[in-house]
Each structure stands twice: as C-alpha cells, then as structure tokens.
C-alpha cells in the first residue's frame, strides 16, 4: 500500500529539514522525501493533503512503564501504545519493572509477542540489569539481548552496590549492550519525597537533595569510563549532572543523558498543596534549575527527552503526599511540553523535535526517528499551535495521573502513522 502526503511542512531534525513538501511511502518505508513538492506522488494509491500541517518523524521514547505483565490495572502494552500514538510517540522502550520483572529471555519474548498482537506502536523491551531488579546478581544480559532486549536498566531503583554495577557494566560493555541508569545515591535520597529545600522544610516533607543525583552521576560515569560501557544517564534533573556527563565524555566515556519532558515544564512549587500528581522521581526542582535544563536542551547537551511515563491508579495517588507513589502519566504530553519550549521558550521546532526523534533513535541504533529514504515510515501530522485543555478523564492511558491535568496546552497530534499505517486520527479529523 503506497501513500503520499503532500502540502505538509516537513520537519526532520536529522537532516535539518524544515520546508513545505511531500513524502511518499511504500511498503512501510519512506521512498521519497520531496521538499518543495506540493502535489501528490503519481504512483500513490492513497494521498493526503496535509493542508500545511507539520509532518515529523514519530517520536521515540526511551522510558515508558506499563503494568504488563502483572500490574495490568495500571496499564497494558495496548493501552500504553494507544496513549503513545495519540501523543505522537511511535516507538517505546518499556521498562522491566513489572511483575514478574523482565529479567530473562522468555519474558523479553513475551513482551515482544504481546506487543505484536496488541500494541499500536513499536515496543522495545528493556531488560533488567540485575535479577529481580534486586541489585544483587547480574541478569542474563547476553541472552536477553539476543531475544530483543534493547537496553538494560535497573529501572526506578538503581544498583546501590558499586561493585555489582561495575561488573554488570564491564560485562554488558563487552557485549556491546547499553546500560541505562538513573543517577541516584540512595543513601542520600532515601526517604525523600520532593525536592529538598525551603519548600520541603516548610511543608514538613523529607527532601531529595541534588547531591544524591550528583554523587550518583559521578559514580556511574567513573564506572562507565573504567569499563567502556555505553551509559544512558536516565532522567537527569539538574544542570550540574549534565556537567558531570560532559566531563566524563571529555575523558573518553560514552555517555548520553536524558531528561523527563515534565521537568522542563514544572518546578517544585507545583507540588503546591500536596498534589501527589506532581510527585515524581527525580522530583521537580527549583525554578532556576528548570530554566537551566531548558538552556542545556537548547545547547544540545541533553541527548534525549523521555516521557518517563509511569501510570499509577488512584489508590496509589489518593494518599498523603509522603505515602503516595512516585510517577506521572506522560505519553500524551511529551510533544505539547516540548512545543511549550518553542512557543514560550528559546527552542526552534527542529531543536524541540531532535531530542524526541532522531537522537534517541541514534542512541539505540534504530533506523526510525527521521524522514529518510528507506527509514520506517513512522510519522506524525501535527498542528503546533492548536490549543487544548488537558483533562485527565480524556487521556487514553489506563492510569491518568498527569501533572498536566487542568493545564492549557498548545500543539496537538492529529494523525499518527506507524510503518505507513494510520494508527491514530484525532477526533477533529475523522
């Protein structure tokens, strides 16, 4: 089935393209990217007049939690992918923190198979770095990699024992596997529930100090350098962490950094009256840090932006702040959060798209995330200016714990295609 989409504003960060033109898709792949062309391709069986909408690669999200297997009341691969494609995300890396933990090859295959039969987007399982995510014994990294695990991570609870992490890095590095780890010295962040500081003190909540992230980052980068393992520093929340990554890179380590889309949008004050939807880890930091992260993103120092999607049902969130679960549903708000940095911030559209398309794809060695001949035809059509009110009850995720609930956002995905097939159409079109 061939498809032509014309009269679109083509946005491709990988080739720095921002021009009106047309694309031609055949058998799931881009066959032609034609800047300047405003008419349909003559061989196309179907064609769409984009009417000037933006056409960009589908988003690639490196950090998504679902509840499948075992915690399906939170989210399944099917519901997560439905929410993802509505937010323009066409490739998702799903975390291993499920029940059971994804720590062997059968479970990796289970995720892949379930995704094939139920998911609207491309799903890539992340394997557990340690058995049961307990941080005690290395999981079968090689076998899982052969079965399709794309990265290895200990998920929300990074390995505390430096010796175990070092060996896991050395082993994974020798196989060419990539490790993703959130920088966190848990002895310091321990019982914390929000950003440490004046506000936490006044609210009587225990804080997560920035030092916990810095010390974690220093440890992880030193070990990555020593072992030669490729490390993705998961969800950095301060600018100094980015400096630590830069310093390690200058010494020859292969290090990437990611940040959660919501960390560019919220600061600690949004916790307000103990709003548990704003309880995330790493926590929303102070305003100066938020602005610093935006600057770092503008300079290209944050390699990828992730949704950090972490669905939590009401029973996990309708609790006193200290007892509520961490995590925010984020799949449908990544693009609007990034576009807010275009509308109200310093980024260009291409700068806002690069960390959610080609850069994460490159980190994983994936061919998508770009408008390029023979790349998978994963694409979105979006209206960057379309205003909408984010209402929890209209989100498609099974859990709707979004800190964006009640916020006015600008920019909406109208159509999403995976491998040339339309998987999402906004109700305003159909």
């Amino acid at each position, binding site marked *: 089935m061939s498809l032509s989409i014309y009269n679109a504003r083509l946005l491709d960060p990988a080739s720095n393209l921002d021009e009106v033109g047309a694309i031609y898709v055949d058998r799931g792949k881009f066959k032609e990217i034609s800047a300047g062309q405003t008419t349909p391709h003559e061989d196309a069986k179907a064609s769409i007049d984009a009417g000037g909408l933006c056409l960009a690669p589908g988003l690639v999200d490196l950090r998504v939690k679902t509840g499948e297997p075992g915690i399906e009341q939170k989210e399944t691969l099917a519901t997560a992918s439905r929410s993802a494609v509505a937010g323009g995300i066409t490739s998702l890396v799903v975390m291993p923190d499920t029940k059971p933990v994804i720590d062997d090859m059968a479970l990796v295959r289970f995720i892949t198979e379930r995704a094939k039969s139920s998911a609207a987007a491309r799903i890539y399982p992340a394997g557990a770095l340690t058995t049961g995510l307990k941080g005690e014994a290395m999981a079968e990294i090689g076998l899982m990699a052969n079965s399709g695990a794309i990265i290895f991570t200990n998920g929300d609870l990074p390995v505390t024992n430096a010796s175990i992490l070092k060996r896991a890095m050395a082993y994974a590095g020798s196989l060419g596997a990539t490790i993703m780890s959130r920088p966190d010295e848990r002895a310091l962040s321990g019982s914390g529930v929000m950003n440490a500081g004046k*506000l936490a*003190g*006044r609210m*009587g909540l225990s804080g997560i100090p920035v030092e916990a992230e810095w010390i974690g980052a220093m440890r992880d980068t030193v070990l990555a350098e020593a072992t030669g393992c490729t490390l993705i520093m998961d969800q950095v929340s301060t600018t100094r962490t980015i400096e630590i990554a830069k310093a390690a890179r200058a010494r020859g380590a292969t290090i990437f950094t990611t940040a959660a889309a919501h960390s560019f949008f919220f600061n600690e004050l949004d916790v307000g*009256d103990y709003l548990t939807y704003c309880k995330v880890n790493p926590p929303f930091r102070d305003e100066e840090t938020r602005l610093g992260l935006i600057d770092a993103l503008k300079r290209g120092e944050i390699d990828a932006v992730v949704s950090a999607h972490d669905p939590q049902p009401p029973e996990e969130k309708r*609790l006193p702040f*200290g007892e509520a679960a961490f995590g925010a549903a984020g799949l449908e708000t990544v693009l609007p959060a990034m576009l807010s940095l275009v509308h109200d911030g310093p980024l260009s559209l291409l700068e806002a798209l690069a960390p959610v398309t080609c850069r994460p794809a490159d980190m994983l060695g994936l061919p998508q995330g770009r408008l390029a001949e023979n790349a998978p035809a994963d694409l979105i059509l979006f209206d960057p200016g379309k205003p909408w009110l984010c209402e929890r009850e209209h989100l498609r995720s099974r859990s709707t714990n979004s800190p964006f609930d009640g916020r006015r956002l600008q920019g909406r995905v109208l159509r999403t295609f995976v491998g040339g097939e339309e998987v999402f159409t906004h109700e305003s079109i159909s």
Partner: protein
Amino acid sequence: MTRAAYHYSFDHEHLLSIEGLSPLDITHILDLADRYAEATRAGIRPDPVLKGKVVVNLFFENSTRTMSSFEIAARRLGADVISMPVAASSVKKGETLIDTAMTLNAMKPDALIVRHSASGGPKLLSRKVDCAVINAGDGTHQHPTQGLLDTLTIRRAKGRIEGLKVVICGDIAHSRVARSTTQALHLMGAEVHLCAPRTLLPSGTETWGAASATTDFDKALKGADIVMMLRLQLERMDGAFLPSRREYFSFFGLTKDRLALAKPDATVMHPGPMNRGIEIESAIADGEQSVITEQVEMGVAVREAVLHLLAGGRT
C-alpha cells in the same frame, strides 16, 4: 453623623495550618480562648454551644495528651465526643485515612479532629469530608492548636506578643510545633529565633517567619523574653543526628546558668512531653519562670475556642 461600620467574621472552614490565618483571626481565637480559660478558672460552665454536635477524634498516631485535651474541650462545650485511636495497623496508613474519612463522613459528624503521621494528611482528608477538620498534628508539618496555645500562653504571661524576643530550641527539623508556633508568633509581631544543631536545622526557616536560625544557643538566649524548648526524640540522639545525649545537653540543654543569659523575667515553655535532664533541667521545668503547666491549661481553652468557631456556629 455616620458611624464607621466594622465587621469581622471568622470564615474558615477548617483549621489545617497557621498559614492562611490573619492576625485578626488569631486575636479573635485567643480572645475567645481567654474567656474560656477564665470561665474554667472561675468554675463557670460555659454555654453548651456544641450541644447536639458530634465531634470525632481521629488519631492515627498515639497521643494521650492532645487527644484528651480536645476531648475535654469538646465536652465542656456540650458536644458528644467519640475518640478513635486508629492504631497503626498492618493496613497501609493512607488507605485507612481516606477510607475511614469517607466512612465517618457518611455518619455526618460536625467536626473531625485528625492527627496523622503524614504531612498533609488532614488536608487530604478535608477534601473528602463535609464537616470541619481540625489538624491535631500532621507529620512534621503543622500543629496549629499548639501554635495558638503557645501564643495565648505568652500573651497572658507578658501581656503582649509584639516586640517580644522568642527563642525556640530543639529538633526544629522534625517539629510541627516549631513551624506552627513560629508562624503564629511571627504573625502577631514577635521576633522568633530558632536554635538547633546543624543537622536538625532545616533551610528556609525565614519562610516560616523566623528572624534567625542559629546553632549557638548561648548567643540566641541573650535578651530573650521567652525560651521554648522542644522535645528531642531520643532515637535521634544516638549518632544519627547527634553524637550523644550528653553532648546535646552540654550544648543545647536549658540549665540555670544558661537561662541567666536571657532576660531576668524570661518565661520558659515546653510543648511536652519533656525529656528532663536532656533538653531541660528539672529545676527549671518546675521553677518559677516555667509556664509549662499553663500551656496545657491554655491548650484546652484554645481548643474550646477553635471548636466553637468551626463547629458551633460563627460569632
């Protein structure tokens, strides 16, 4: 000739925090509490303004003192009181909180008095119920009636609040009393100085209204009108936050010599229960300058006033 109209009404639905109260609100509560205190001293039974009302004490944390104080206050005003110490069971505390709140709410009480180990717990509960919620202490956040009773005790001892130098010493970091009392006294014009070992002194105390925060108790005491000592949880003194009890007493214990650094007529306070010989010498706790038992007495009076205003029809 026209007369300037002045109208004040106490229009708070709940008492969850000192934050949100105005100096006028506090004065209003203290004036009413003062009248209740005098009535009790004179042996006069107050008007049963809570007659027919149901007040529920919901304590998720053990507290004999505060729970009895609220219970006596509510009974004096004629309320029917049910006290429910909800033991910290194997059930997850938060589930108990919301579920218990919904269940109790269906029974239509007129006021819920809540103590919970989580900061913000009573606030969460107040969103789910239709009656007045009074925070009787939440985690390390607030204990508003304690802040009010401290303020009343000081006003009675000194005849004023404005311009007084108050020193609060002890575990500031984990103290909801320090937060509420500092805010209340600051609102009423006192100058509050906080003092603690560095590990128990959080940043940002200026946002509570504190004039200073220091680790030098002796220096802080100079010229103090009021010295308030806070209870230090014994388990915090064994190496985690402090090296030892004797080291704490040596630097932060209130002794006779130390008290001499304050004004000669300085008043000594403690929200109780005390660790005698650790944060305060017995001789001082029981001495002439101490108003510690009056604090307990004012506790009942303040709680009568608060219950009256929130559950007994507005005046």
